[in-house]
């Protein structure tokens, strides 16, 4: 499942990459040239990429250690308990009895 998802997203990424090459016009270029070549953005992008990679690695390590990947269905069940167990529907339209309601309503107001 995980492998399939990773493969899918990679495939998608490369398709998007290919399509983008097509979308770009021939004369496509950077509009602004301040200095002939500025390496600052590139360097920062590299740093950012590293940061992202590290953070993803961190997050995955933590997730693995703390057992987020084990027993996944139990995480999904944390919102259920004995009072409202799995399988219990908890929402419904109020009953639709307009005429009876009117009479009772008066009683309530008084």
């Amino acid at each position: 499942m995980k492998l399939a998802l990773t493969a899918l997203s990679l495939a998608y990424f490369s398709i998007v990459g290919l399509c983008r090459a097509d979308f770009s016009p021939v004369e496509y270029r950077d509009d602004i040239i301040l200095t002939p070549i500025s390496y600052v953005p590139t360097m920062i992008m590299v740093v950012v990429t590293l940061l992202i990679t590290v953070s993803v690695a961190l997050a995955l390590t933590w997730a693995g250690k703390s057992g987020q990947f084990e027993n996944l269905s139990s995480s999904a069940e944390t919102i259920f308990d004995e009072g409202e167990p799995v399988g219990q529907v908890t929402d419904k339209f109020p009953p639709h009895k307009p005429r009876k309601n009117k009479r009772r309503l008066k009683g309530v107001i008084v």
Partner: protein
Amino acid sequence: MSPISAQQSALNPDADSLTPAQRMAERAAIDRSCRTPCLVFFGTSMFWLMLGTILAIIASTKLHTPEFMVSLPFFGDVGLLTFGRIRPAHLNTVIYGWASTAALGVCVWLMARLCRVQVMNTWILVTAGALWNLGVFVGMLGILLGWSTGVEWLEMPTQAAFILFTSYALMSVWAILMFANRKPGHIFVSQWYIFGALFWFPWLYGCVQILLLLQPVEGSVQGIINWWFAHNVLGLWFTPIGLATAYYLIPKVTGKPIHSYYLSILGFWSLALFYSWNGGHHLVNGPVPAWIISVSIVASAMMIIPVVTVAINHHLTMKGSFHLLKTSPTLRFVVFGAMSYTLASLQGISMAFRISNEVTHFTHYTIGHSHVGMYLFFTMMMFGAMYYIMPRLVGWEWPSARLIKIHFWCTAVGGVVMIIALAGGGIEQGLKLVNIWLKEAPTEANPSGTPYSFMEILAGTLPWLWVRTMSGILIFIGHVAFGINFVLMLLRRGERRLTPTLLGEKSSSPKLEAVTA
């Protein structure tokens, strides 16, 4: 340890071995503890919703009938009602007044339920709510009186922004306190989203306030930062809250756990990673460096991952429970909202590419797209959440099923018609503006054909805009139905039920009655 949590731990000596009745009592106590803050947020958000809808109808009418409400009786011509002020007033009212206020209310309730503790420090929330509404009020008045900053999505004068920021900071502090006091156990995916949203939004908002208004940068950089903000309001504030709601309510109402918890985690992190890079696609072909646009287009395309994971997950959770759409008002709105989320995101991805953006940018299509996101997705989600939460707060049924149905059908049909009108009108306008749809096809004598003149293009959009105004009126009727139901409920009109259906069949047990009474 605060007295409340001491009381709670006395009530639950061992969290894992409680009887159903004790569980229900615990939940009812948590719901009840949300009552004051949630009612403050929901009540005021209803007011802004009504006002925002009225402003929307006025602005929409002005687009095809420019003389509509230009002059007031006795006052003559006033700037207060000009389109250029009504439109931002509408936007700010619905974004900050309705949607954000409702979102904060839902956040409070979800946090309390998911942390499994009663709401503490209610005064922080009430102060934050009061400040928030004050900020929106000052801001809206400022816009109408002509003190707008002129930056889209940030039109409110800086004074109002300061009030809003303070209020939001209070909310964040409260949320951290709640998190710190939560019951041990897994952090449910909705909490991830809420935690992210409560952290991202103040940073975003504070950052742009400084860079655009207090110590403003110049020109094109303003444009980039402006759209980075405006897109992230949707992506990092409304979307996480909307999804947190869906991730909690769909399983809770249907009584089925989320289909794949793994997918929901993947969806969260890919959303966090890609959505925040999307803003640049609002400036495609504009006067900004091309790499910014390219990065944003790639990030927009990558949004397919969080969107598809959420869509698959929700669909598979709902599978086999679609019959409940007939009987559950909450599920109707929430599922409608979740489907619109997929639609809005796929539409957004398709609009991000250079070639499609050239047509749809600068047209009503973009306005339509933002309404798919903000109305059909987020607003419907909030309606659904309020239908679920309100009875549990006040221990009272919604007075009228008929009004709920009117509300749903008017807003759903009105919303869809509005989107169709704006999309259709926008595509026609866009194709004509970039000279793809020509008035006369190219001939040998006239090799590039005759394009439409600007006035002809404008005339072409008018019928679509009329349809849009009509749909706005339909939506307003829906909102009025909701408002009536809401007020009747607060006034405790209608039937007081000993067996409240919305609170679940089992809740008629005498033990819970004792707690709720």
